[in-house]
């Protein structure tokens, strides 16, 4: 199932992004055998990790004998290209990464960083998970989320609109409507 005619599995990439800071707990979690096994079961073939300033370096793999091909880098100016070519995105909970991924209509698992002092980041991820736009996980529950997720049940996110704010600001300042 899913194999092409010449017997080569189609390339299905999982892109992991931690944003501009570091999130070793997430990189460590995707580097575990449990998570890699779950990804393989879901027929993903490649794992690309953007690890930021993190100190934990995942193990590279060429993906021989049916294992997951793993590659990583620290930063890149072409995050959008990586997001676009991914079949699944696993991201930190920053609003920039979340909305960029949703706008590109890629299935998304957001992993909340529990080490952050002021952990307001989980609010957005949990709210959007409740509205079925994405899955929300913790580093230690990531493998369960991958095992149980049903990507067909996710709803597309319709981008918001800043014009109501602009209208209120204009009215307040005495500018005419147009």
């Amino acid at each position, binding site marked *: 199932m899913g194999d092409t005619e010449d017997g080569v599995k189609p390339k299905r990439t999982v892109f992991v992004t931690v944003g501009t800071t570091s999130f070793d707990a997430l990189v460590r979690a995707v580097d575990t055998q449990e998570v890699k096994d779950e990804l393989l079961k879901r027929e993903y073939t490649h794992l690309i990790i953007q690890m930021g300033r993190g100190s934990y370096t995942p193990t590279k793999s060429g993906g021989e004998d049916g294992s997951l091909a793993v590659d990583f880098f620290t930063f890149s100016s072409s995050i959008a290209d990586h997001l676009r070519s991914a079949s699944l995105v696993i991201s930190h909970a920053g*609003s920039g990464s979340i*909305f960029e991924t949703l706008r590109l209509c890629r299935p998304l698992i957001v992993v909340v960083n529990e080490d952050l002092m002021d952990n*307001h980041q989980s*609010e957005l991820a949990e*709210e959007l998970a409740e509205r079925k736009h994405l899955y929300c996980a913790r580093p230690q529950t990531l493998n369960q989320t991958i095992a149980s997720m049903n990507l067909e049940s996710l709803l597309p996110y319709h981008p918001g609109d800043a014009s109501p*704010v602009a209208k209120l600001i204009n009215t307040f*300042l005495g500018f005419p409507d147009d």
Partner: protein
Amino acid sequence: MDEGNGCCFSILASKFTVTFVTISLTLILIRVLYVIYRSGKPLFRSKAPRALRTLIVLGSGGHTAEMLNLLSVLQKERFSPRFYVAAATDNMSLQKARTLETSLADETGVKVEETAQFMQIYRSREVGQSYLTSVWTTLIATAHALWIMFKIRPQVILCNGPGTCFPLCAIAFFFKVVGIRWSSIFYVESIARVRRLSLSGLLLYKLQIADQFFVQWPQLQGQYPRAHYVGCLM
């Protein structure tokens, strides 16, 4: 007799001082209350203003993306010139604003230098800095913020939650009280805040410094009735 006179005089002097201080404090209080009362009210002008000096406070990644989204729908000729301010440690945000302004300049043919300026501001406290050294850095940052605000003297302030926006808004409020410049302060709470306001947001709401306060989730409007719920900007 002399001693008695001196005593009378000093009593009189101290009475006068007390009265003077009381009257001054009362006048300041009345002025502050008036500014707070007047702040939330729309500006009724006999004629629509032509263009307003606008300060735009940028923050890190997510904050800046939201702010630029808002700017993309505002009529630029009304909010001009535009002064972009970001923390000195943040290079990305001003770069993004510059990109937006350059593309605008290409459309309108007006040079970027004529409509926009980009400035950096010191932060009072970096993440992880000790409290002892932050007393000193806070003083420096406040002086710098005052200087920048005095140069800009904005009529409109747009901000959406980075820590740098509170001191700038507080200074703008001070300018309103002493009569240096009347400004309208618009605060859009970040989309990342679903159930609780950020510290900057909470302060600007509670102290009634923000003229209009926008939230992007209905849960927050329930808790903060003076806020306007505007839906998601992203």
